[in-house]
């Protein structure tokens, strides 16, 4: 059977697969891909055996450190990263929820100082599935369904 790639292959770079369709644009934002000068291609609502539908992002000539990519675990906890060299997958990684989250998410507590002054938020992750994280400043817990991204 002839197989067509829905999102064209890259020679060198990173492929982020198994992103929930609703999280695609959040992942782009978290990884600041709108500022990336390299070729970025993505597909959404692609068929997936495991997820029903999924999104995929391919970034040419960009490679990510664990702590950089683990930030997306908040929105894409099952995402997989493939590092590509000369069209070959040379490494596969699974994202892991970090123990500390800086920036990215607002504290849900309206009385928290981080919602009043220009301070980067900082959370300790207490639980990863579902996400529960404690604000370093006001000590209140923000749950997964309360997360608002900057």
């Amino acid at each position, binding site marked *: 059977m002839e197989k067509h790639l829905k999102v064209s292959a890259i020679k060198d770079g990173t492929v982020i697969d198994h992103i929930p369709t609703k999280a695609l644009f959040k992942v782009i934002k978290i990884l600041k891909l709108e500022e990336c000068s390299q070729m970025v291609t993505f597909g959404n609502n692609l068929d997936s055996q495991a997820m029903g539908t999924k999104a995929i992002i391919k970034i040419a000539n960009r490679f990510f450190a664990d702590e950089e990519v683990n930030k997306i675990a908040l929105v894409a906890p099952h995402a997989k990263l493939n590092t590509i060299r000369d069209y070959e997958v040379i490494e596969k990684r699974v994202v892991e929820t970090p123990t500390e989250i800086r920036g990215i998410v607002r504290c849900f507590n309206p*009385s*928290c100082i981080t919602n009043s*002054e*220009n*301070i980067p938020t900082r959370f300790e992750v207490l639980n990863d599935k579902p996400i529960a994280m404690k604000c370093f*400043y*006001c000590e209140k817990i923000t749950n997964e369904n309360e997360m608002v991204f900057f």
Partner: protein
Amino acid sequence: MIAKSLISITDFTKDEYLKIMSLAEDFEANPNQKLLQGKVIATLFFEPSTRTRLSFETAINRLGGKIIGFSDSSSSSVSKGETLHDTIKMVSNYADMIIMRHPLEGSARYASEVSSVPVINAGDGANQHPSQTLLDMYSIIKTQGSLDNVNLFMVGDLKYGRTVHSLLMAMLQFKDPIFNFIAPPELAMPNEYKILLTSKGIRYFEHTEFTDIINAADIIYMTRVQKERFIDPVEYEKVKNIYILRNSMLKNTKENMRILHPLPRINEIHTDVDSNPKAYYFTQAKNGVYTRMAIIAHLLNLK
């Protein structure tokens, strides 16, 4: 190097709690020790709190320090729109320590990151008020002789009351506490604390009314049930008189039992209790001065 601050009760270790208790005892015996001579302490009260401010300022005066600051934000540059960051940066250049109260939660932690001098949190919104907890502990050790094996009854608003949560966390450092929670279901102790107690194998019991069970208490810690905490005013009307402690209820309580309250009291302790020797809340407030002297001396390494 970041200066050592006191923002949350859990910032201190058990050894530090005990050191504060011992220093407070020393200051109570000798209240006028001029350890702060030549030092300037800033008391920044971004919202008014007369009781806490006077207690801290008495502590500073007894230690021979000088005070700068303000008692509400309308008399500071905050009213001109200055950020907390800039206020703290500026004041930490002037003073040797900052004591602050602020309506926003997390403000004191943030100030401690910005400041080059120690910060004491004198209340950040509904979050933390650690000097209150340390004075509660000093009151317990003074009246019970120890912080171990205390049977502690907490009464009233156990859901939102920051003083009961902080006291619970601090008492976990000591041997075999027993907790009894007396509250209406709407204001019950949050599950996260009950889960924590269970995980540590610490005994706790929940009640919705005062009964003879209070006869087992070493400490009864009263708090105010506030009307504004209830969504349904009818529910408030139902419970408002249940959580009032009266002198007649104390007849069979233990000799060593003492009643604590963070104050201000509204009606949850009837005035007929005041003359009972087991009423300790006014002495507790006085203990606050010695405890705050101890906290200041500890953070500035004066003792």
